[in-house]
């Protein structure tokens, strides 16, 4: 056979030819351009349009950005400087307004000598968030912590309030270092996350330290009652006893106890901070206060509402559905107006409580209804087998939820939950309509109301928008990180 073949073919090549180069049009940059930008007449048109748009935008805005003035005391001065440097017709940004009104954008009308308190609260927030957001040890976390600490130090030095912040930063750093010796860091700092709400409240609003302490003690009392009653009479009665005990504590014990303790300590320094009124809050301090409080409370509330909506008990289900659909059916602005105009109608005559607190309640309720729907979607997406498996293992309702259902349902709904959080943070700007000074409209209007900065529109909007963008964008990136980390399917 091979002989025959050998004879039949007069010439047989023994070695492979080296592959020849692809045509010049199909290599390197040209190939990339052809494939990605000019692969057809439609794509070519789109590409040209895209480049035209970029060119137009750059042509219009680059000079404006580059001609920006950073040091001036009024818009008029800005314009003079630009005219003197770049010619009469030149346009330019007046970034000086950001520089000059930086404090107002950040703190509103918070007393200047107390700026260290919100700054410190922000730093402690980072410490409190670390165990919640990141469960594993990582060097990036140390770098992030270092950057935040340096930022806070720089901020406090720039406000000449180095001492109080410096001391506390040292304390925080020592605590973190002590905590970091275990392999569990940062998870073992979780106790601080529990403590943080009271601490932040005290730092931001000031007043007596006993108010947050006694309020937080209510949770401890409830927990003790729960442990005690549940060992004797089972979890259901225990939970009821815990709630009742905490409620009794807050309703009957807390008020007199705070008064008595305040009487004893008086206004001595470690127990008393100068009080700050809610209408002195403003700018990003306000936005962050409302946003973070809302986010922290709305998630557990949303989980409870979602469980209630999927409950077998018609009454519980009905109440939850009614609540969720009502809240989702009305705009947040109307709820905020209810908070500012109507809430006093529904409280005992003569009660008047803080406007920021009222707004936080409304924003939280609003966001909780949305989160409940997101989590309900996650619950519905779980295969029926998971519920049945939990039942087959003999787990009771709460154990099944805690160990089997919720971890999976929450994992599925992470993107939705985070976008609700982003929505909530963006919606904090709406508080301007109940006369609070949000950074976007409240503060920029206040800045424009002064003679020096009358008519400055774009720079404040760009600045505030950029900060919102950074915060919201990093939240959405974090949700992607979390999704990736929790992915348990085949990779």
């Amino acid at each position, binding site marked *: 056979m091979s002989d025959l073949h050998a004879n039949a073919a007069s010439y047989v090549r023994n070695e492979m030819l080296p592959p020849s180069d692809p045509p010049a049009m199909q290599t390197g940059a040209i190939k990339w351009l052809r*494939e990605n930008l000019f*692969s057809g007449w439609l794509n070519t048109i789109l590409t040209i349009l*895209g480049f035209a748009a970029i060119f137009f935008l750059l042509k219009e805005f680059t000079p404006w950005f580059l001609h920006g003035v950073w040091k001036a005391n009024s818009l008029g001065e800005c314009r003079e400087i630009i005219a003197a440097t770049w010619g009469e017709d030149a346009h330019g940004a007046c970034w000086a307004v950001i520089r000059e009104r930086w404090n107002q954008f950040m703190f509103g009308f918070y007393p200047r000598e107390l700026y260290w308190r919100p700054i410190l609260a922000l730093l402690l927030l980072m410490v409190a968030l670390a165990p919640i957001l990141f469960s594993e040890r990582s060097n990036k976390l140390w770098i992030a912590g270092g950057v935040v600490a340096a930022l806070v130090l720089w901020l406090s030095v720039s406000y000449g309030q180095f001492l109080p912040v410096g001391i506390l930063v040292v304390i925080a750093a020592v605590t973190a270092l002590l905590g970091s010796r275990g392999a569990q860091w940062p998870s073992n700092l979780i106790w601080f996350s529990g403590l943080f709400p009271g601490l932040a409240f005290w730092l931001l609003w000031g007043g007596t330290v006993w108010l947050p302490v006694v309020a937080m003690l209510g949770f401890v009392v409830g927990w003790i009652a729960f442990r005690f009653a549940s060992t004797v009479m*089972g979890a259901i009665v225990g939970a009821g006893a815990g709630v009742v005990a905490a409620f009794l504590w807050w309703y009957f014990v807390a008020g007199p106890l705070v008064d008595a303790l305040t009487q004893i300590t008086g206004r001595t320094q470690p127990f008393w901070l100068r009080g700050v009124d809610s209408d002195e809050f403003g700018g990003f301090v306000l936005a962050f206060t409302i946003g973070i409080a809302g986010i922290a409370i709305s998630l557990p509330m949303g989980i409870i509402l979602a469980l209630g909506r999927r409950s077998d*008990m018609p009454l519980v289900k009905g109440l939850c559905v009614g609540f969720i659909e009502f809240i989702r059916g009305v*705009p947040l602005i*109307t709820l905020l107006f209810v908070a500012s105009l109507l809430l006093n109608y529904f409280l005992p005559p003569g009660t008047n409580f803080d406007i920021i607190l009222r707004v936080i309640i409304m924003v939280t309720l609003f966001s909780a209804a949305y989160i409940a729907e997101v989590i309900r979607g996650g619950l519905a997406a779980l295969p029926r087998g998971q519920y049945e498996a939990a039942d087959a293992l003999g787990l009771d309702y709460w154990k099944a939820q805690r160990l089997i259902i919720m971890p999976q349902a929450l994992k599925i709904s992470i993107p939705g939950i985070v976008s609700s959080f*982003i929505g909530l943070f*963006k919606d904090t700007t709406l508080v301007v309509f109940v006369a609070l000074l949000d950074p976007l409209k409240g503060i920029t209007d206040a800045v424009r109301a002064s003679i020096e900065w009358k008519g400055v529109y774009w720079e404040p909007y760009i600045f505030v928008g950029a900060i919102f963008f950074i915060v919201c964008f990093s939240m959405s990136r974090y949700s992607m990180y979390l999704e990736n980390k929790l992915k348990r399917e085949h990779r």
Partner: protein
Amino acid sequence: MAIASETPKETFRLGMLVYDTRYRSLTIQVVVMLLAMAGAWWLYDNLMANLRVLDKEPSFSFLWNRAGYDINQTLIPYTNDDTHFRAMLVGLVNTILVAVLGCIAATVIGIIVGVLRLSKNWLVARLMTVYVEGFRNVPVLLWILVIFAVFTEITPQPRDFRVTDEMIAAGEEPVASKILFDSVAVTNRGTFVPKAVYERSLGEIQIGFLPISLNTVAILAVIVGSILGYRAIKKHATAVQEATGVRPKTLWKSLLVSFGPIILLLFALGFHLEIPTLGGFNFTGGILVSNALMALWLGLTLYTAAFIAEIVRAGILAISKGQTEASYALGIRPGRTMSLVILPQALRVIIPPLISQYLNLTKNSSLAIAVSYMDLRGTLGGITLNQTGRELECMLILMLIYLALSLLISSGMNVYNNAVKLKER
């Protein structure tokens, strides 16, 4: 000796209310109901006590009093002598106007951007990503305020459009000129757009409080008729194709049925566009669209479109590639693959979140307060509330109307969703 095999007699003990799963849910519900009723009673009691203190009586009769304030945009006739109720209706119509305009525009832009973001064109996909991320991560209030500032601060004054004889002689161009074939004038006093005018108008009839233009009714009727005729031609062609195997050519017939009647009707009505012209210090003729409406509309549109783009993208990505390949394997052309295979399946994924975006847009239209657009909140929840001091009643009506709007939109879209959803056994 007791007989062990006898089943123990079921006796009801109080503890079973808590520990027996048969009764537990009942107990919990009773407790919840008691708590809810106690809470509701507490709120009601407080409300009554407060109203007594303030010497107010809940009453809705203020709705029939004279409003006494002007509204700058009225789609239904309104003067300041009308009642608060009518002012409320004007506001409601304004809310609906901006919501409908916003939903339409946001859907169009959202679909285009969502598809372009999936495009193989590197540059366009990146640009669309920048647009989506930029608009999604910034409060919508910012976009409304920025666009409002653009319209009031940057757009030219009406007098900048003036062309004088000296300018023509000197060959100078005016500072500003109208856009879109010299028909739309964007000025700092508002945008002037052409207005439809009918020389031989059919007049209008009054239904309740709403004047309805018979011209519009006639045009709508003819359009509906044309669509039905077009469908009938298609149906006939399909029937012929199924009977004979050859699809008759219907292009001219369907073009004629689609556009013939409406053109004839417009001719009969003497339809033409009234272009805004510069007279004195301002434009006359045409319709003045206020800057507030433009800013609100554009802001809501661009913001919501970014969300819709993501929904559309996710919907298209959710359809597996195998569907396209299977369709090509069956010999179906790309265009028909899109319309018969991909889109029906993608729509199923797209519609539910799209509904909630429409709802969000409608609710966000209450941000009109930022640019003083007189929507429902501006009339009923704003001036009426401040004039009459009836916070409770006004807020109640306001919330109920928004609730009704939301439920209407979501039920309407749910009907559509049921129509396109997967038909299961």
